């Protein structure tokens, strides 16, 4: 354990912030989705770092579950994007403002 865990946690915080800011400033829904993946990865890194710092395998198991949920989320999200694209050929989040079915 030569690199202290705090460095990993700081890196994870920066990754999370970059993902969050990207989610706010980009309007292409696919790239917004990638930013969500970035944030999930930052949290995964935090979990693994705490698993090492606390000497607890539970953190790594939680990361496994996060991976499964992320996979499910991507599948459903991309299906929604495909279904939006089928109506209107546009990938801009600002234009998808109608709630009419």
């Amino acid at each position, binding site marked *: 354990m030569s690199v202290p865990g705090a460095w990993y946690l700081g890196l994870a915080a920066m990754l999370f912030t970059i993902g969050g800011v990207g989610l706010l400033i980009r309007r292409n829904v696919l790239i917004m989705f990638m930013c969500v993946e970035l944030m999930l990865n930052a949290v995964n890194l935090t979990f693994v770092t705490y698993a090492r710092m606390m000497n*607890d395998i539970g953190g790594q198991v939680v990361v496994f579950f996060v991976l499964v949920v992320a996979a*499910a989320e991507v599948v459903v999200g991309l299906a*929604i994007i495909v279904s939006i694209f089928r109506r209107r050929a546009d990938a801009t989040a600002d234009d998808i403002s109608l709630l009419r079915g």
Partner: protein
Amino acid sequence: MDWVVFVVAAAACLAGALGVVLASHPVHSALMLVMTLFGVAVLFVAQEAHFLAAVQVIVYAGAIVVLFLFVIMLLGVDRTENVRAERLPGQRPIAYLAGAGVIAGIFLLARTAWVSGAESVAGVADGPGSNVEKVARSLFTRYLLAFEMTSVLLVIAVVGAVVLARHSPSGGVHGSEES
């Protein structure tokens, strides 16, 4: 040596993350995302999470990014976008302020302590045995119910994706406005 690995992987992570946000082309963003995911996988290996590093590369870089690229190519949105354009007034400065606030808050709160609480509640992470064995032992004993429920979640996700992306030509709920 550990520091070298950490610095290189962290630089790759941060560069990839910035690339995802700043690239104007969706395909470039997806490739930058792969770089970040590989960097995180290296950091997993550096922290003895070997199983998760393998899963990270296979599931994220192998499956999820390929899915992203597949959708980008399928929908034909592989054209550049003007990143600088701003439609909602004040959206970008507020986003930067929020990001700065988040990171400043995290680092200010972290000045006291990064870690506290009981250790090794769900099982030790080091000691004899491989990492895969320890993850599996915890997953199939203590977290067995949650593990079984993830299979239900995956089935629901697959069914939901099929229903959402289904092409219903007879004017069903989905795709009724397209013609």
